[in-house]
């Protein structure tokens, strides 16, 4: 269901989405691009670089309350027989992410798959995803994972002159377009492919095996680890890094609730057990584990890496490590 629409029609569709869903859109703020609550359809960018932050902040926020375990445990009355009060779950039931670039939509799809055996997150059916055409930067490498199909969103938008080309990619997306004043469709218009020069597909199977054979590449990993600060910036910005601690958040009224707080596999205590015994004592152990999880364990177990080539890790690394080149280097080792 493809159509050419004007600005007015686009705003009508976005306004509808804003009424029906708790909506977050990619917008400019202080000349930087962010994914944040959308209060005005005109603010949505329809041809953009990826946002500085990803959906992770919204869907799986740091210090987020675990909804299933929301209990206020009242310490004023320590009687074990009395009832606990249960906080009503006010988290959104329907979310819309608008203005995502395709690699982020793919990352969202993978993120939800990782959590699919639990009820800790909304399901894909409760989330509306609207992608737009992207402006890649020098650190993008999405095409390293093969042809990037546009199959992770409900609606895709690209600019065409003063107008917009809109694509309904799922039933939900098609329904929204149809119900908001769009009745002329054109099968001939196509989604523009993403082209990144010098980024050819990776041999993921070889890379997965070589990362697993750490003993064969000892010097390679040592060299990288020497450069790496172990700061964990890559894990913060990566949309597919979701390691977490489970904490109790205490408050001044002597109540507490359980929450998840972001952790990083680079943190010193990540693999520590009692008496500070550490299974990954060196930075090189933790760094290797990061690559191993994303490009070896996930590939072997799920068939896909926990990476979509958005390049945020490269942009944020203070040690100028280029993670794309690092894994590509293993193909040749």
């Amino acid at each position, binding site marked *: 269901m493809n159509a050419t629409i004007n600005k007015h029609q686009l705003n009508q569709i976005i306004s509808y989405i804003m009424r029906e869903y708790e909506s977050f859109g990619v917008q400019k703020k202080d000349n930087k691009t962010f994914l944040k609550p959308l209060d005005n359809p005109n603010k949505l960018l329809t041809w953009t670089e990826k946002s500085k932050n990803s959906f992770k902040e919204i869907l799986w926020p740091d210090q987020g309350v*675990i*909804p*299933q*375990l929301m*209990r206020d*445990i*009242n*310490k004023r009355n*320590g*009687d*074990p*027989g*009395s*009832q*606990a*009060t*249960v906080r*009503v*779950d006010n988290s959104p039931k329907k979310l819309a992410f608008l203005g995502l670039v395709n690699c982020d939509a793919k990352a969202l799809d993978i993120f939800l798959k*990782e*959590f699919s*055996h*639990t*009820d*800790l997150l909304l399901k894909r059916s409760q989330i509306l995803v609207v992608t737009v055409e992207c402006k890649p930067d020098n650190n993008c490498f999405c095409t390293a994972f093969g042809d990037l199909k546009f199959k992770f969103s409900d609606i895709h938008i690209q600019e065409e002159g003063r107008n917009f080309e809109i694509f309904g990619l799922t039933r939900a997306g098609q329904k929204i377009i149809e119900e908001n004043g769009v009745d002329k469709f054109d099968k001939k218009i196509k989604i523009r492919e993403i082209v990144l020069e010098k980024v050819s597909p990776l041999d993921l199977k070889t890379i997965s095996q070589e990362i*697993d054979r750490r003993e064969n590449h000892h010097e390679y990993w040592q060299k990288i680890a020497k450069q790496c600060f172990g700061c964990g910036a890559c894990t913060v910005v990566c949309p597919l890094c*979701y*390691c*977490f*601690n*489970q*904490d*109790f958040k*205490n408050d001044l009224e002597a109540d*507490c609730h*359980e929450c998840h707080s972001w*952790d990083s*596999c680079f943190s010193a*205590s*990540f*693999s*520590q*057990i*009692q*008496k500070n015994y550490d*299974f990954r004592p060196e930075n090189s152990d933790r760094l290797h*584990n990061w690559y*191993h*999880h994303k490009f*070896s*364990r996930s590939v*072997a*177990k799920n068939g896909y890496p926990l990476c979509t080539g958005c390049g945020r890790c490269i942009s944020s690394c203070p040690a100028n490590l280029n993670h794309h080149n690092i894994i590509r280097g293993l193909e040749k080792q």
Partner: protein
Amino acid sequence: MRQISLRQPADRNDKEIMNLESAKNFQTKSYPIVSKVTLTDDTVLFRLRGRLDFKPGQFVEILLPHFGNVTLAPCSGLTNKKEFELCVRAQGSTSDALVQLLPGDNIALRGPYGHGWPTLTMSRGPLDKIHRDGLIIISGGMGIVPLRPTLLNLENKIHSSKLSLFAGFRRSVDVLFEPDLKRWKRKFKVHVAAESAEPGFWGNRGLITELLETGSVNKNSYVLMCGPEKMYQYCIKILLKKGIDSKRIFLSLERRMECGIGLCQHCSCGKHLVCQDGPVFRFDEIKKELNIENSIDTNK
């Protein structure tokens, strides 16, 4: 002593509860403490009322409000369906507080999670393999805790020549479950060793590996091990030298476990997640991650 208590969760029919129905694997249940026994100066054994359908070797995540989580293995036998036991050692901020709970308090937990000890079943019956080939159980320190349900389960069902236990402890005052150990000593081969012992200690003084080295072992035996990984390295070396098949050795790995459902990633070990693929692993499948030296790899 400060009393810490956790109140009962609200009635499941309460209309205010929106998501609890669907969060099966993250659901918390509270169990009241019925009794508390002090085993050593830092270890207690709680008996809790309630039914917990666990397999020996599985673990549960205890939630202690205001403090945090503790990973424990239920350690009671399987015959009493109305109660179960948890053994807690105080070795961190949460477990320090947990050991102070008293009968009447509640303990909230999630689980059980993970794969427990293999049931060693055959088509003819659940204990046939052990009856034929024998079972060796090796524990170090707190490692006896996840093995206790298996020992309690087998003590009256198996011929004395087919079961041996090697239980090592750091000091004689650290010996856990003394009444059980002394009772088992009358039923099958039990070797208890402490590295340092008070005078009059009824067990052996020394390392458990020394007893394993000198003990006679049927090379077709199955082996269940739980303890520090350092102990595994030495014991496996001895077992392989005695001709035991690496596919017959099962060990329980310890890692930092928090969520228990394969999400938080703290327990990752090579290509495995200990909370989902373990904590019990067959030795040949986990050999690489244990960094057992190549010199003892007998290609089994």
